[in-house]
């Protein structure tokens, strides 16, 4: 297609010249129309294809609205142990949108503000199985692959790559409310929520980049 057409046709005296031929043309009319039809085809297909792909991947860029849910009176939560509450983190999927949260008041022995509340997610930081708090040991234990977390949710055993996720909390009136999820680094610094299996802090913040589908962490 790119080679000059007269090289093909002009030097061949037996072959009749195609309609519209002129000396020194670089493209035959047939080539021009062929390219034109192909371009038209690409133009016709591209918007449909792009729209379909965009339709399929749109949820990646969709930021869900923050959901806050009351879990009862703030006075009911001790600082030396956890109380469970069940909250809904996804609407419209029945029980599979609910999750258990372990809640307690900030503990002065752990250098925490007693007016703050800690809400630990039960989603294991290894692969997302549900952990449970074992009161006798004071640890969180995952049933799937043996991950163990201490009272603050820091990893003390097994395969998990970072401490347990947390949920934002606030007190409205005397009502304790639980909000969006966030992840923490090994020093319990809040960062945007990561999926289980993803490290946090340092270079990992770039290797596992924050996603638009998660809420901003508390400052």
């Amino acid at each position: 297609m790119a080679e000059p057409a007269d090289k093909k046709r002009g030097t061949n005296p037996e072959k009749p010249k195609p309609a519209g031929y002129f000396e020194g043309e670089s493209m035959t009319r047939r080539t021009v129309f062929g390219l034109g039809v192909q371009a038209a085809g690409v133009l016709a297909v591209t918007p449909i294809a792009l729209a379909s792909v965009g339709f399929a991947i749109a949820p990646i860029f969709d930021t869900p609205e923050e959901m806050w849910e009351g879990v009862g009176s703030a006075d009911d939560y001790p600082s030396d142990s956890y109380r469970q509450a069940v909250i809904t983190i996804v609407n419209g999927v029945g029980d599979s949108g609910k999750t258990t949260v372990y809640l307690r008041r900030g503990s002065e022995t752990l250098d925490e503000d007693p007016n703050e509340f800690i809400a630990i997610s039960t989603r294991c930081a290894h692969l997302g199985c549900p952990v449970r708090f074992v009161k006798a040991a004071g640890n969180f234990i995952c049933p799937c692959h043996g991950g163990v977390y201490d009272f603050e949710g820091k990893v003390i055993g097994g395969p998990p790559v970072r401490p347990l996720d947390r949920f934002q909390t606030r007190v409205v009136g005397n009502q304790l409310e639980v909000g969006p999820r966030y992840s923490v680094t090994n020093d319990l610094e809040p960062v945007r929520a990561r999926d289980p299996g993803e490290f946090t802090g340092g270079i990992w913040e770039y290797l596992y980049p924050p996603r638009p589908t998660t809420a901003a962490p508390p400052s």
Partner: protein
Amino acid sequence: MALKLPVPAALRKPSKPGERSNGAGTNGAGTGDGNGKAGSPVVDTVKEGAIDVVGWLDERTGASPFLTGLLLRKVPKGTNWFYTLGSATMFAFAMQALTGVFLAMYYVPSATDAYDSINYLTNDVFLGEFVRGLHKWGATVMVILIFLHMGRTFFFGAYKYPRELNWVIGVVLLILTLVMGLTGYLLPFDQRSYWATIVAMNITGSGPVMGPYLADFLRAGSEFTATTLPRFYAVHMLLVPGLIIALIGAHLYLVVKLGTTAPPWLRADPKPKPLREEVVGPASGNGISGNGRSGNGRSGNGATRADEHDRESS
């Protein structure tokens, strides 16, 4: 349409030169011989009618050379039961497709209704347990068969030149089959399938840089959302099966085009002399024609090339 579609004898396809005209097997051909025997006129009419219908179709589709090349192609000596593993895998897939279509008539891909619909189709629908069982165990059977087929290909050396592309297509088919297993696992939406899928999506997310976005794409969000299950359902019953069917077509095309290999224990004759005499002799007329099959029926990988090498060195 009428059963008997008249085709003038002149339009009927003649048998190919050199082909043994054995009557029933070849479409439209061989009407002349064998029919001279006296038979019941009804039988003859029916026979004639069937031949006419087949001939009518064949004339308009040109299918008979294609089908002859597909179904009556030559296979090497030593072809054995191990060579059926590929077909077995394909029939397992066909069974999955068939039972899957019927399961889709009862299944509801919604997080709140999926489990109930599975419960209903398993326990209340006539033969529901059987059809669902076929689909469930058939998935395992298909994965086992595809690995056995892969092992056969590997240990028989059938992935070597010129069949590397077919190996690559086969590996893609293997991955797609496993994707089918993964996406299908979620659909019953019981505790096991839910948590297994959570784990699978978190493994996806643990890939650096792209992983978190891929996991978001699979889930349609940062958590398991209302559209996650329909997403898996669409991938399971539309996207991946379409790809599998297309790639099976390409896989089979290459099998027919390139031919199959002889088993590795069948080698070219270690004594080249008598072999060379045979090839150079009367068999030389059809000796060099392609696809790695040599004329004397001692076929397989490189047999022809080995013969040529022998000839050059002498």
